[in-house]
């Protein structure tokens, strides 16, 4: 497993609370698969103490990209880094999206809410590479919460946006946008990442329309590599429910395996 203490940041882009960093990490980049994540140490002191999980947003030759939103102290510290500074990064971690099914000519709908768009850029490019017809649905509160939408378009990926306040694209929730898409596009696969209620609603639609869906879950993580048992969520497998580790068994799970009720 690649593990590097100090990785140089080669580029930074910021939009308000959102930041995109590119850092040089050839081994990590070679090993990375869509849906995997890295654990980044916010600072050098003991407060904040733990690393923070951040998805791999993109890969470009020997470089990796991350895209994140400031959510608290840890991400605020990360956001203060500049090009030329370094990150203490551990990864790639987790199992990522399952891309074993034949994808050529299939239609894939990718549903990203807010910062949940992060892993979907890497995924979209990979799916397109494998011949899938990709449509990305990207939802945010306002137009300002859709900062990376240009990236998808520049990469030639089909994109539709929604905003809760109607300031850009489809007015309403991104799951509303999905509901309008499903009858038109009849996607073969759904890939989802975003806030819990959005993912739960997407899982509901997937089940109603019988579309296989993969969902990338979040959870507070102590280690990121299966050692602390802190990151569990309720997962059903072979009929039996159990607390399963997001970091090791996930973060991506088939929608039908996720137990949404009774754990929070």
């Amino acid at each position, binding site marked *: 497993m690649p*593990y590097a203490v100090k990785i140089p940041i080669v580029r930074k882009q910021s939009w308000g609370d959102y930041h995109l960093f590119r850092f040089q990490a050839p081994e990590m980049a070679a090993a990375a698969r869509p849906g995997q994540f890295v654990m980044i140490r916010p600072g050098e002191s003991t407060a904040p*103490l733990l690393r923070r999980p951040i998805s791999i947003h993109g890969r470009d030759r020997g470089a990796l990209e991350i895209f994140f939103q400031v959510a608290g102290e840890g991400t605020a510290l990360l956001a203060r880094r500049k090009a030329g500074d370094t990150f203490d990064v551990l990864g790639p971690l987790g199992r990522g999206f399952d891309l074993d099914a034949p994808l050529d000519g299939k239609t894939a709908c990718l549903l990203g809410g807010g910062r949940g768009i992060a892993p979907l850029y890497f995924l979209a490019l990979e799916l397109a590479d494998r011949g899938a017809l990709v449509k990305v649905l990207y939802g945010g509160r306002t137009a300002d919460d859709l900062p990376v939408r240009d990236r998808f378009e520049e990469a030639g990926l089909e994109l539709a946006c929604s905003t809760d306040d109607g300031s850009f694209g489809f007015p309403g929730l991104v799951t509303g946008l999905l509901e309008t898409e499903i009858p038109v596009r009849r996607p073969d696969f759904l890939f989802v990442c975003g806030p819990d209620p959005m993912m739960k609603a997407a899982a509901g639609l997937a089940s109603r329309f019988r579309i296989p869906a993969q969902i990338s879950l979040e*959870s*507070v993580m102590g280690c990121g590599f299966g050692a*602390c*048992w802190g990151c*569990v969520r309720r997962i059903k497998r072979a009929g039996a429910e159990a607390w399963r580790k997001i970091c090791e068994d996930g973060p991506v799970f088939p929608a039908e395996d996720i137990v949404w009720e009774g754990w929070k």
Partner: protein
Amino acid sequence: MTVDLAVDLGFLKLRNPVLAASGTFGYGTEFAPFLDLSSLGGIVVKGLYYGPREGNPPPRLVETASGLLNAIGLQGIGVEAFAAEILPELRRRGAEVWVNVCGEDEDEYLRVISFLDGLDGIAAYELNISCPNVRRNGLCPALRPDWTYDLVRAAKERSRRPLVAKLSPNVTDIVEIARAAERAGADGLSLVNTFLAMAVDPETRRPRLGNVFGGLSGPAIKPIALRMVYQAASAVRVPVIGMGGIMSGRDAVEFLIAGARAVEVGTANFVDPAAAARIVREIEAFCREKGIARVSDLVGTITI
């Protein structure tokens, strides 16, 4: 100058004084990508009950100022799966394996020990009488000298292996508990387990942990842990293994000077998966710099 890192616990010689703390090192195998498991003084695997355990509902972790609050609730695979899937792999990797022994009641502790006694390749048992995360109110045997005595004595009588009692810091008088465990026949003591603690979310007005209470670990607790290790080591003859917030070789050296014969590294493993091995090297470098030939020469050398 070469530094002799070996320490003698009386019942066991360790290649160096650094063990990985139970529950913070998984079953050990998770760390194989990051360090050579045989380079540590030992690894104490995650607490084992007899059967598999569900653990507590999430959220199970909350970060606090320089600390980590956890309420995992000892989710785990149980002794049979451990024997089948984990132990052989650890032995193959040359790890010195300690098992952290848990139980809902005395009977379960003894059944775990009996089962493990039947396996080869375990160096010692750490009797976990101090987990605050199993009962909601944080109750555990290590809160009272009589409970401690009874359980340690029963476990020691059953066990064919050295037995170290792991003590709780949530007590008025650690010396009283340490002496009770010693009297009951513990071959050594390890301390501290986590501090019973909680966090509240002002938004939801609920406890941040699914289990309400949790155990606090990490650098935040180091000064209290060090005080207790010093007090316990001053009061008993059996070796004391110290822990609580050790992040660096210098932190470990503080515990050794205060009287610990060895140390365990816990929360640090999450932040830096190679921490335990790094701390071994940092202790060695400290000794070399100070001209200390044997790390055991540091133990208990505090001048008051």
